[in-house]
């Protein structure tokens, strides 16, 4: 059976693939792409909060540990380290993800925004200011992840991404209370500041 596969691959990529195929004969298999050496360390570059950063990391280092332990951006927090709690939420190329469930090596060339990139104490992002105004945290440990997630949630609604709380899939998305709670369910707050977090996000969402 002929499957519509080849049309996705440009001519340039086919040529590259053929060249790699030739080059790979008699060489270790890893030569096909950017590869880690036997030591398991890998050079990579990231743009973090607008700044170009170069790193040389063990392949096992997660994006979260690269940010905290190697770039010393400790605003992003480690909670469960398994994608359950959302404390490590950052934006990669504008999209929120769990930094704990991603290898730093996989982000070579990516743009990462952490809580430090949203605003500074003297120049807060509106979401940061709203969290303060609504007393939307107690211990504060989940707050960087909550704020990154909240900013991304508003963009996702704008982009028409549905959620489990969405009624009519075809209608324009709005930020109801049910929508907000469902969309923020990947960010756990052990102190239970949820109602104030919801107030802060609704406040920012309601602004023109």
């Amino acid at each position, binding site marked *: 059976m002929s499957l519509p596969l080849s049309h996705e691959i440009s001519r340039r990529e086919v040529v590259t693939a053929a060249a790699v195929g030739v080059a790979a004969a008699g060489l270790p298999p*890893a030569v*096909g792409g950017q590869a*880690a050496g036997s030591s398991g360390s*890998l050079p990579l570059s990231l743009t973090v909060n607008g700044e170009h950063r170069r790193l040389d990391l063990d392949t096992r280092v997660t994006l979260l540990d690269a940010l905290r332990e190697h770039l010393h951006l400790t605003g992003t927090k480690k909670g469960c380290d398994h994608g359950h709690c959302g404390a490590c939420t950052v934006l990669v190329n504008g999209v929120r993800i769990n930094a704990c*469930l991603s*290898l730093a090596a996989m982000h*070579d060339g990516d743009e990462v925004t952490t809580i430090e990139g949203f605003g500074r104490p003297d120049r807060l992002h509106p979401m940061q200011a709203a969290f303060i105004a609504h007393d939307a945290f107690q211990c504060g440990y989940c707050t960087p992840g909550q704020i990154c997630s909240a900013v991304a949630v508003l963009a996702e609604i704008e982009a*028409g991404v549905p959620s489990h709380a969405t009624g009519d899939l075809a209608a324009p998305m709005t930020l109801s209370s049910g929508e907000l709670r*469902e969309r923020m*369910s990947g960010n756990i707050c052990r102190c239970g500041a949820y109602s104030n977090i919801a107030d802060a996000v609704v406040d920012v969402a309601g602004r023109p």
Partner: protein
Amino acid sequence: MQPFTYERAASLEAAVAAVAARPGARFIAGGTNLLDLMKFQIETPAHLVDIRHLPLRAIEDLPDGGLRIGALATNTEVAAHPRVKREYGVLARAIVAGATGQLRNKATTAGNLLQRNRCPYFYETSLPCNKRQPGSGCSALGGVTRSLAVVGTSPHCIAQNPGDMAVGLRVLDAAVETIRPDGSQRRIAIGDFHRLPGDRPEIEHPLEPGELVTAVTLPRPPGGTHHYHKVRDRASYAFAIVSVAVVLQKDGTGRVAFGGVAPRPWRVEDAEALLPDGPAAVVKTAFQGATPTVENAFKIPLAERALALALSEGRA
């Protein structure tokens, strides 16, 4: 994590060749399940081939009116696609019933299909598990079984497939397209993609070493109303105790698949033919031969109620 080497694949051909050439090599795309399992040392690949930059992310119309979803399209991208929302609503609903916004932004279509099971004994490395250590025994049998499968199981494994997306794909008659290391391509019906455990629970799908999923295709939209109901222990971000995907036509006929109850999305065509007779008739046939435990026998009446809810919604 155990040490591993890493490469970013430069082409599709290089990716499948790299995985086929090295024992212990694995593809990685979203990584949300694989890295989690690597942290527990349940998965210990010696080499990772990162395929995220391959041109397998597009979602495009097929000439026959169907839709082709690239293997690397994220869960979010699929659920937010205008045609998926409009014409394959059961798929959009199933996807957003699973995981969180952060995970759906990273998890890919193929990775979701290939996610491992969530049996607590699979995760507990100090105990035997036939999936983790073939032949070591099943700790779930005689253990805590409330979340586990009730049908399609074997004396060697009672883990359930935890997916939501796959249940939606099952009622849409999706197919999985792959490429093998020799360059040949094949198409696997979604109903044949997840294997029942039998006496080899560690073999979960028919893919060969180095074979890569390239896309999931959907036939022309089935019409009707689309429903996905998921019953779980909390309102959001939990695996299904029972879920049901339904495509219901005006004349009362339709398609039904259940999630959270079997080692694969559980669709029995003879059972869904009984839809006009009501949910009890469908569930009775769909769960014929079920071997639930005392702890999870409740899943069968719960499946009937979830189906009844979906049907009442469809008739409203």
